[in-house]
């Protein structure tokens, strides 16, 4: 069950870090087959579209950035994360960040939620004291993360690398399955905002980003399927030069 801040205790149980979070699913077992829904609609309920609109507009208006948003999802308790649907996680993250950024208090959120529970058909706008923005952004909703280069990239295509074996308690985009692994730089992708700091209000610290190729046997050992490779986009500080040819 989704818990918004103030509903009955903080939804993220006061967790501040992701600590090898549950969101990092690559290579995990036990989730069963991929279930597909036939003729799936764009949205299953109106509130899902509302959740999408809230995230899109919050990003465009600068209430929070994409890395903060992802980190807010990652801070959900593992059992809640798995029990929630995709858009429930979005809603949870917007609530967490709206409170942390000072746009709402837990008490006010809870009070309004009680009102809408009692007034089922009421529109959101019925409780809004004012609506300062007359209409939504026509923008496509893309926020660029590419920044100008300030130094030449350290690696080039073909360079063997090894990823750092780290387990940060904060947000990172280096998946657990690819830590301490040898790969080969496939290509340089430009200089990109660094999520590991940008998620925590520590600045954009842009870094070179590389597409890196990993042989499946390097990632999954003897369990790897034949003739497979995984490509990841990794920031320069995730990588160290490796000696010789990569596995």
């Amino acid at each position, binding site marked *: 069950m*989704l818990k918004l801040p103030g509903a009955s205790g903080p939804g993220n149980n006061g967790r501040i870090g992701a600590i090898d979070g549950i969101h990092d*699913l690559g290579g995990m077992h036990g989730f069963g087959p991929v279930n597909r829904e036939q003729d799936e609609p764009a949205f299953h309920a109106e509130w899902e579209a509302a959740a999408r*609109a809230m995230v899109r507009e919050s990003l465009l208006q600068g209430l929070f950035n994409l890395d903060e948003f992802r980190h807010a999802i990652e801070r959900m308790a593992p059992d809640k994360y798995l029990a929630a649907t995709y858009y429930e996680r979005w809603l949870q993250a917007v609530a967490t960040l*709206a409170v942390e950024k000072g746009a709402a208090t837990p008490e006010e959120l809870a009070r309004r939620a009680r009102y809408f529970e009692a007034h089922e058909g009421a529109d959101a706008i019925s409780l809004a004291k004012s609506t300062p*923005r007359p209409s939504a952004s026509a923008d496509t909703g893309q926020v660029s993360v590419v920044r100008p280069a300030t130094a030449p990239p350290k690696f080039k295509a073909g360079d063997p690398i090894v990823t750092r074996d780290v387990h940060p308690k904060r947000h990172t985009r280096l998946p657990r399955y690819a830590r301490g692994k040898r790969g080969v730089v496939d290509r340089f992708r430009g200089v990109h905002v660094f999520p590991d700091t940008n998620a925590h209000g520590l600045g954009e610290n842009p870094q070179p980003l590389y597409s890196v190729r990993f042989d499946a046997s390097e990632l999954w050992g003897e369990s790897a399927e034949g003739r497979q490779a995984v490509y990841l986009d990794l920031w320069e500080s995730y990588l160290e030069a490796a000696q010789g040819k990569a596995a």
Partner: protein
Amino acid sequence: MGKIHPNVDKYVVSRARALESILLEKGILAPDSVDRIVKQYESDTGPMYGARAVARAWVNPTYKQKLLTNSTAALAELGLKYEMLVVVENTAQVHNLVVCTLCSCYPWPVLGLPPTWYKSPPYRSRAVSEPRAVLKEFGLEISESCEVRVWDSSAEMRYMVLPIRPPGAEALPEDRLVKLITRDALIGVATVHAAQ
């Protein structure tokens, strides 16, 4: 694991409205923000940009080269401004598959909203470690001589597969080809068939 059907109980709905009302007041949301999203994804039908780009690439080698090396320019020709797309080509030797293991990153400007299965723990956990087994569940057997390349969208680059043009569709014009191309083929969990 993870619910397939979203919660529509009063508890979730009322909390979504509570947040919406606050964000309206703060000038984050506008009164038409939600309608605009619904319209964008439900009523703006027409073929996906991804399908249009692939069909053009199949009939026009120059466009194909542009799509593979400078997707921003290739998509601009179709009227779409999108700067982060990487297009990866399927051949007899390489089959590409797209996933996001850490969240559910997806090239929605070219493919629309992702299906629920793409965002589900089974797909996110297994696509990187046993892609052939996953593809088999989708009815796709990849020959042992063909390399499977999985693109895990860990940064803001987004991936789309350029599928193999189906045998039997050599004579079809671009607008007919567009209709054969499915979202699943552009993710890499299906191939394109001439008769559909």
